[in-house]
């Protein structure tokens, strides 16, 4: 007996055309109180933002930004040595481009948009030709990196990770310079670092130096030796329990007293010390989470194989723990970028600090709204972009899998 199978044609789904009106209805006016909310909030938005936008385009005096752009960006860094900063930016662009192309699948379109964004900065009114060319060059470098990353794929993975790790110390080296005497590539002391450059330098130094320190604290906190454990716990909890600004005050006022006579550290170095201590304590807590997640069996297997404590930590435990907390660490470093603004309170000339000193000049009194909006926008932009990139990279690297 043949079973009668009704052969139905497989139909394509009905094409739902959302008219603009249909979408508006569904999302904004679906119920009466929805409509009310929509109208109410639209009104409030208008009342608040219309005057603001009006102000931005009419009464606001944006010349203050134009006149001081270099100061805000790099402080007093000697113009003749600017090539070093550009070099750092170029290298970053290439590595970032390669990372993006290699590790981010899917909407490469968004990636291209991000990379091309600096193009718009080229249109900024007060830039010199040289700077514009360099900005354009950076975009090209990033794009080149992107396509290389796409083409070569995973084979460059190790090299790229290595580049990231080497990049941060390299930046410190490049910006600071080498030799006291030499004309070419001499030392540019920390008192010349300012503006956004100083903000980034503080962040980078914070990351580089707090990392080993923080990992040691985390390991020490889990030690079975009571004194070591107590010391680490007290250190971590005290630093985390007090406001960051008190640590900065401490490093500015109290730290010099603990140094031998004759050794003076300039303010920037002292602030860096404060940043490093602060960052290390938080890093220790984050790494501790990763360490706690490692099953006891890993330790036992290593022990049974004859590996000693040191070998076990280096080859088995730390690689697993660190890999597990990479997203959290990246988040911490982005926060560090924002927290560096506090050095303005102790008189350093980072992006915020230099803005405040700028506003004290007779020419620019009363220009607070313009300047603060500008630096808010800069902080926002860098922070948001860094967060976004780290989210996309994290997804692709499959952290947590393997």
């Amino acid at each position, binding site marked *: 007996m043949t079973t009668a199978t009704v052969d139905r044609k497989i139909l394509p789904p009905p094409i739902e055309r959302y008219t603009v009106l249909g979408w508006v209805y569904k999302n904004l006016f679906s119920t009466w109180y929805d409509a009310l909310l929509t109208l109410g909030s639209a009104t409030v938005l208008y009342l608040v933002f219309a005057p603001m936008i009006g102000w931005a385009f009419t009464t606001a005096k944006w010349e203050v930004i134009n006149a001081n752009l270099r100061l805000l960006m790099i402080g007093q860094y000697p113009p003749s040595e600017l090539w070093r900063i550009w070099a750092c930016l170029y290298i970053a662009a290439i590595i970032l481009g390669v990372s993006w192309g290699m590790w981010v699948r899917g909407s490469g379109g968004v990636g291209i948009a991000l990379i091309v964004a600096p193009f718009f900065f080229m249109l900024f009114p007060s830039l010199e030709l040289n700077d514009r060319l360099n900005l354009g060059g950076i975009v090209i470098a990033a794009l080149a990196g992107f396509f290389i990353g796409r083409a070569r794929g995973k084979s460059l993975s190790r090299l790229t990770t290595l580049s990231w790790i080497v990049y941060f110390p390299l930046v410190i080296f490049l910006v600071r310079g080498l030799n006291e005497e030499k004309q070419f590539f001499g030392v540019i002391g920390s008192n010349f670092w300012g503006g956004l450059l100083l903000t980034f330098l503080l962040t980078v130094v914070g990351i580089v130096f707090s990392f080993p320190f923080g990992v040691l604290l985390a390991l020490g906190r889990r030690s079975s030796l009571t004194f070591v454990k107590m010391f680490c716990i007290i250190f971590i909890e005290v630093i985390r329990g007090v406001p960051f*600004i008190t640590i900065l*005050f401490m490093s500015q006022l109290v730290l010099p007293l603990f140094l031998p006579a004759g050794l003076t550290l300039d303010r920037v170095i002292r602030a860096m010390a404060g940043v490093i201590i602060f960052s290390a304590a938080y890093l220790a807590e984050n790494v501790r989470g990763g360490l706690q997640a490692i099953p006891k069996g890993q330790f036992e297997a290593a022990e049974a194989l004859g590996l000693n404590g040191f070998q076990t930590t280096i080859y088995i435990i730390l690689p697993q723990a660190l890999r597990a907390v990479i997203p959290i660490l990246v988040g911490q470093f982005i926060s560090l970028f924002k927290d560096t603004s506090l050095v303005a309170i102790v008189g350093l000339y980072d992006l915020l600090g230099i803005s405040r000193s700028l506003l004290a000049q007779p020419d620019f009194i009363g220009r607070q709204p313009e300047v603060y909006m500008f630096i808010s926008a800069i902080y926002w932009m860098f922070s948001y972009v860094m967060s976004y990139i780290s989210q996309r990279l994290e997804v692709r690297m499959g952290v947590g899998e393997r």
Partner: protein
Amino acid sequence: MTQASPTRSTSTNRLLAFLRDERFLQALSQIIFILIIGGVAYWLTQNLLAALARQGIRLGYGFLTETAGFDIGEMMIEYSRESLFARALQVGLLNTLLVCFWGIISSTIIGLVVGVARLSTNFIINRIAWVFIELMRNIPLLVLLVFLHGGIFLQLPRVREAIAIPGSIYLSNRGLTIPWFTLTPAFSIQVPELQGFNFSGGLTLSPEFSALLIGLSIYTGGFIAEIVRAGIQAISKGQTEAARALGFSWWQTLRLIILPQAMRVIIPPLTSQYLNLTKNSSLAVAIGYPDLLSISNTISNQTGRSIEMITIIMAIYLSLSLITSAILNWYNNKVRLVER
């Protein structure tokens, strides 16, 4: 081999065994660590004492009983130039507690509202909440505070041309003036009115306090909003579906089913946001609000006693942190789900 090697005597063997005993080695590493730390501490202390001697400073907390000699802009208790430094610190502490108290309340309200709004089906509300959260998460608090204070409050017009907001709220260079209640002679609500060059009635919050409170509230509120959103989304969809199937409205579902459960997920990270707010209140020093840190900074500059002041400040903030987290841990334990 259990037999001792013939070239070593038994006592040497015993000594070697002792030196290789794991308990001995552990104790030894601790002792070495203590010696290193102790050594470093000693060296630092020596440097400190030498530096203090060079500058002719002697450590001691007696200065707290000396006359302050400076004015404070706003205070909750009696204070004048003739008051003691210790008194000045009390003023600062109370000011800090005041802004933290109101800050915690308002940031929670803002956080709840924005967090729920973030999940709304209404497109505009949803997006406003999203923009708010992204702004607060990416702009440093200090920049926000400085902007609010220097870029907004200090730019406000004089009292006579104050900006009026519906609800009898006025913004002027004197700060934020709002209706308030008085308890004497009897409970009544006062609406501020312009009289001459000032407002009478109501409560006027200084530009510094206003900027700090508003800044702390919206900044922390943004983070709390994310916590609330994540907490609500963490409650399994099944709960929402069951509630809706039973006939509850969206609002009832939220209030009776979702939020009570979400609270358990929300409380721990909420704790750390309150702690952050308490610590962040110290940024008042940048905009001139006389909180604990500002005043201690003034004292420190006047007397040169930076070490003593720093220890006092760190101790007070540590205590505040510990107390806040103790209270919230207690609450957390109380509301924990009782499981089989």
